[in-house]
């Protein structure tokens, strides 16, 4: 039935001149043709389509058959395949490239989620053929095709482990490899000459490379050659970076783009599209952490400059919360720092915005990130960065962190670092001006401080207080009173006043309070034991975690906590007492 309709409309149209087919003609051709193909009569359709008499008709209307053809080809039924393929091949040669492009891209875009990979792989070669037919005007079409294809490929799940990459169950690796083959002729063309026409093509390829750097490459965890010898994803990454070079982009210029970009560049939006920061960050990561294409990066740039460039990207990564981004940020920071000599980064770097933001973000990771290995790594990288600053920069950095971190653990860690620097300075012949002498005291003032005076919550600030006391004790022992290299002995009376006395008061108050609480709790639990066991105590407040109300603390638990607090105060008190002892001994004539 449908076949007759198809033959009829084709017969009728043979007589029409100048392609003056009616909408009805198009419609019948399309519907009849589709039905025939779906019904398995592709052989007959093929003979109609290749018939010379029908040349014009096919040229105008043929592309409408793309939809049904693709669906049949995806089904991969043995009988129909060769004929459908032949029809497709013929259509690709005779129909208008622009119309074919639209038809093919439509198929890609509308692909069922289960068959994205199959559709893409099926249609890449046809698309390439069609685009190559466009000649000099192909640039924007190539761009459109690449954008559509990449958009679909980006939806495929990304393999995370070596096994997943080998198995490639969702075919992401196949698609990426196929995409590289697809794009190759266009890259070659863009490489050849420097005409403005080629510029457009280069821009489209740039956008494609940049987009690939984000999706899928930002999600990918590349395996090194020892782990996985043949890695399609590593290959993909290498080729994408290669394309950037092929189209004339300089890797150093790309890397320094975020650092050096001038504001108010005409066509500013174009900049954002062509050089998105996230893509550049991905590039930096691939180059410096995974060593992709590193042999093409000139071995001429100073490591400090590379660090400065990368800080922009490190900051971007560390501002996110996803594990993959944070991991990448930490790795990139680490690799950039390792290239620099210890004690070499000058204080002027502290003036740069990124050198302020990155540590702030690092502190967030160290204190708030739920993933333990990231917290640990964050701390490691923080210490590494401290080691790289020169003395003055360290000084400024410590001051800044004490002011801004608002976290007792971080503050404690910084104070320990300060102690190490003082120790280092005392061991040198000439010392240094920042951790001894006049500059030391403003810093110490920041360290030896109780933010709320005697009412400071000592438990909350435990880490900080303990490190501060350790530092003070260290200074008094290490720097003999008769030498007084650091000047601590001259400042001591002030420190006693603004720090030791309020701390002593605070400790006494805290201990008294907790001892009272302890007594209270013991009394209460005796009382409840006397009453019926089924009665539960009403607590002042309740705690709900993850939709579950936490059970009340048992009396035993409460006692445990109170004992622990008292123990902490004892610890602090013992160090404080030791300090007072040292002072007393020194002051005796």
């Amino acid at each position, binding site marked *: 039935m449908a076949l007759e309709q198809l033959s009829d409309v084709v017969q009728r149209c043979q007589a029409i001149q100048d392609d003056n087919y009616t909408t009805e003609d198009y419609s019948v051709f399309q519907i009849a043709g589709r039905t025939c193909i779906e019904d398995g009569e592709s052989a007959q359709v093929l003979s109609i389509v290749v018939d010379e008499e029908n040349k014009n008709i096919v040229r105008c209307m043929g592309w409408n058959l793309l939809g049904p053809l693709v669906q049949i080809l995806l089904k991969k039924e043995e009988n129909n395949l060769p004929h459908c393929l032949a029809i497709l091949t013929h259509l690709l040669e005779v129909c208008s490239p622009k119309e074919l492009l639209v038809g093919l891209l439509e198929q890609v875009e509308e692909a069922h989620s289960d068959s994205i990979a199959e559709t893409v792989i099926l249609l890449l070669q046809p698309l390439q053929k069609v685009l190559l037919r466009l000649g000099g005007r192909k640039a924007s079409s190539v761009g459109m095709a690449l954008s559509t294809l990449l958009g679909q490929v980006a939806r495929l799940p990304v393999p995370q482990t070596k096994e997943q990459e080998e198995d490639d169950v969702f075919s992401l690796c196949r698609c990426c490899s196929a995409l590289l083959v697809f794009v190759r002729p266009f890259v070659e063309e863009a490489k050849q000459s420097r005409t403005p026409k080629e510029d457009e093509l280069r821009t489209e390829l740039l956008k494609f490379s940049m987009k690939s750097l984000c999706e899928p490459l930002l999600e990918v965890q590349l395996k090194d050659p020892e782990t996985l010898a043949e890695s399609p994803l590593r290959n993909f990454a290498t080729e994408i970076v290669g394309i950037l070079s092929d189209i004339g982009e300089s890797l150093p210029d790309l890397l320094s783009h975020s650092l050096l970009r001038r504001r108010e560049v005409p066509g500013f939006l174009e900049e954002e599209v062509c050089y998105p920061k996230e893509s550049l960050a991905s590039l930096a990561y691939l180059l410096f952490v995974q*060593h992709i294409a590193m042999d093409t990066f000139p*071995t001429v740039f100073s*490591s400090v400059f590379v660090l400065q460039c990368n800080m922009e990207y490190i900051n971007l990564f560390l501002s996110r919360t996803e594990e993959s981004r944070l991991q990448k940020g930490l790795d990139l920071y680490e690799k950039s720092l*390792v*290239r620099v000599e210890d004690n070499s980064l000058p204080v002027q770097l502290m003036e*740069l915005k990124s050198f302020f933001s990155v540590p702030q973000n690092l502190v967030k990771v160290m204190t708030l990130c739920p993933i333990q290995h990231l917290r640990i790594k964050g701390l490691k990288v923080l210490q590494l960065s401290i080691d790289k600053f020169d003395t003055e920069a360290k000084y400024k950095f410590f001051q800044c962190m004490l002011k801004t971190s608002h976290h007792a653990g971080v503050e404690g860690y910084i104070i320990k670092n300060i102690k190490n620097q003082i120790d280092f300075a005392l061991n040198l012949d000439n010392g240094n001006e920042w951790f001894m002498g006049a500059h030391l005291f403003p810093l110490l003032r920041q360290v030896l401080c109780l933010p709320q005076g005697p009412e400071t919550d000592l438990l909350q600030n435990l880490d900080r207080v303990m490190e501060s006391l350790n530092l003070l004790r260290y200074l008094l022992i290490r720097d003999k009173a008769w030498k007084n290299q650091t000047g601590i002995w001259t400042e001591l009376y002030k420190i006693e006043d603004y720090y030791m006395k309020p701390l002593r008061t605070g400790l006494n108050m805290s201990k008294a309070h907790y001892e009272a609480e302890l007594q209270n709790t013991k009394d209460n639990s005796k009382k409840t034991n006397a009453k019926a066991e089924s009665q539960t105590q009403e607590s002042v407040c309740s705690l709900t975690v993850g939709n579950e109300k936490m059970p009340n603390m048992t009396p035993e638990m409460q006692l445990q906590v109170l004992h622990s607090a008292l123990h902490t105060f004892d610890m602090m008190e013992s160090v404080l007492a030791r300090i007072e002892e040292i002072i007393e001994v020194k002051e005796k004539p």
Partner: protein
Amino acid sequence: MAAELTREWSDEQLKSDDLSKKDVIKFIQDNAAHSFLAEHKLMGNIKNVAKTAKKEQLIIAYNDLFESKRFLGSEPIEDVTEHVKNVKIDDKPKEVVEVVDEGPPKFFKSVLKKGDKTNFPKKGDNVSCWYTGSLEDGTVFDTNIPATARKKKQSKPLSFKVGLGRVIRGWDEGILTMSKGETAKLEIEPEWAYGKKGLPDSKIPPNAKLIFEVELVAVD
């Protein structure tokens, strides 16, 4: 700065409203000797000077300058450095920081092919180079010169701003001594290359002396 400065503006032009005070001040600041500026109270930020000086004063100063010929450079050298000190430094927030430290030069240059000896790059200029880098034992670790001549047409030389600490110090200092067209061999001590660390995971071992053959193709 030659003392052969010519009057650009006639008296009528000076008096007219078309010529702003700032233009006149700028001209005088650019071309007059330090002591002249001091005497006529024309030193400092142009905006501030414009606020305090009247147009008539400026016209008088302008005429005085040409009569007395107390141009920049006509006074002793201390004068010039003072003037330079007074020039306002652009204080846009820095994006890039240059790392500077003292010490004797840690590189050695031998000229392989002379340049034009006229176009020497200054700090901040954009330069373009072909280069080959090798270690002391002769291993080539990097080059941007493609293997075939045909490919050389398609590739671009390395371009960067010299003298700003973006490249290793041996390059920054070395290239500043080269003129356009020159090819030189730069032997760079590790302190001015990649130092004690070298480049981890890469071709440069720690404490490596680097030897570069550099052709300075273009100066911005």
